[in-house]
């Protein structure tokens, strides 16, 4: 780790407090000009939000335009990621602090992709863009302070297996600790079908059999920050009865909201093995012969 972790007491209860920084910590560093080895990255759902104003010196990485390979329907490869890092002024030694809109959905998703490439030090700004703005902290449309491009980020072969689940993995996993983080209406299947309206389109509504429903937002406080560890424990450990030592899979519609829950389980609660099924409902809901369950109950493991 290049830069010492944020020592704020509010973070210390989490399993891996070094994965979060507070707005105050970041503001203090920026004010003191202590940005050597630090790159702040904004990653939003709305691709134009960065242009309306961003944290001074922050660069933008867009999940769709920068992290996806549209041809392979996959993430960029090692060379693509290295190119993006070079353009963003990020070396393998850089401490990356990610923040974004929507309680950091997309920032968490980008962080997960950084971890697929094993970037050594990548953290989230707790509360994201909304918390920074709500506190009246400095925003700018200027490029000033933006890191100059670097070179030589190594082409790392992405290591998907520990962090990423594919449909075959999920099919073999039914009955295991599986969390659907979408809204209750998407889980039950009442939402997705709207006659006469164009939409992104999943053919079937419902959820993966045996998945438990915990909408992602239950992990977020009203101000967009993560809830304290005790509250998170009461949801994921007590209510669901899930165990930190048992491999767990999370999913949503395209894998972004579930990246938020993946972050909570992995870094805040210390689950040892959590994989994000990024194919999520857009793949599963349309998959030929993939079983689904409808209604509010998780359902049974189908006979095979």
């Amino acid at each position, binding site marked *: 780790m290049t830069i010492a972790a944020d020592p704020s007491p509010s973070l210390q209860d989490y399993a891996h407090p070094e994965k979060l920084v507070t707005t105050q910590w970041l503001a203090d560093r920026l004010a003191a000009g202590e940005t050597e080895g630090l790159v702040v990255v904004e990653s939003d*759902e*709305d*691709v134009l939000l960065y242009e*309306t104003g961003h944290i001074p010196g922050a660069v933008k990485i867009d999940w769709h*335009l920068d992290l996806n390979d549209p041809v392979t329907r996959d993430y960029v490869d090692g060379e693509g990621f290295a190119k993006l890092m070079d353009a963003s002024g990020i070396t393998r030694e850089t401490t990356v602090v990610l923040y974004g809109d929507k309680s950091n959905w997309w920032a968490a998703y980008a962080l997960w992709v950084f971890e697929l490439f094993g970037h050594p030090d990548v953290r989230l700004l707790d509360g994201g863009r909304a918390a920074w703005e709500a506190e009246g902290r400095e925003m700018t449309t200027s490029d000033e302070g933006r890191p100059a491009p670097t070179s030589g980020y190594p082409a790392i072969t992405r290591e998907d297996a520990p962090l990423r689940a594919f449909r075959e993995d999920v099919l073999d996993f039914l009955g295991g600790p599986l969390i659907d983080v979408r809204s209750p209406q998407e889980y039950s299947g009442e939402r997705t079908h709207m006659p006469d*309206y*164009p*939409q992104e389109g999943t053919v079937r509504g419902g959820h993966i059999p045996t998945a438990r429903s915990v909408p992602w937002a239950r992990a977020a406080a009203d101000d967009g920050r993560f809830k304290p560890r005790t509250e998170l424990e009461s949801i994921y450990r007590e209510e669901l009865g899930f165990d930190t030592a048992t491999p767990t899979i999370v999913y949503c519609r395209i894998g972004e909201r579930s990246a938020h829950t993946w972050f909570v389980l992995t870094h805040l609660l210390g689950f040892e093995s959590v994989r994000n099924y990024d194919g999520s409902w857009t793949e599963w809901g349309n998959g030929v012969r993939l079983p689904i369950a409808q209604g509010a109950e998780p359902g049974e493991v189908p006979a095979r």
Partner: protein
Amino acid sequence: MSAADPMTPAALPEGFAGIAEDFLALGGRDRLQLLLEFSQGLPELPERYAEHPELLEPVPECQSPIFLVTEVEGQGREATARLFFSAPPEAPTTRGFASILAEALDGRSVGEVLETPDTVTGELGLAEVVSPLRLNGMSGMLARIKRQLAEKAGL
């Protein structure tokens, strides 16, 4: 009409041609800046809608919340189409889309709006800078505008 013939792409409708030209003349980052300018120029809702948000129709194809409502002045294809949108400032892309549609279509005849090809949203040079997935939101708005106008104009 040649619009039905997929081999000869129809010229862009009048309202969109200038907008497309402006976008296509710019490179990636500047294209986003222009979209930002559109988003900043989205007209405010008139009071009669600002006070009655329930009269507006949601557009779930957009990832961000946007609502729209149309009015027609007159009847039939010659009636004048009026468009009104509401989207929060934290959704600038969606506001930009709405603002483009407002500039291109507001005040035109219902017939002209209904003849707008559904593919027009893909011809403004925006897919590369906002992603095709996000662009679906603008198609969703256009489809809803057309359906509302057709109903309201008695077509």
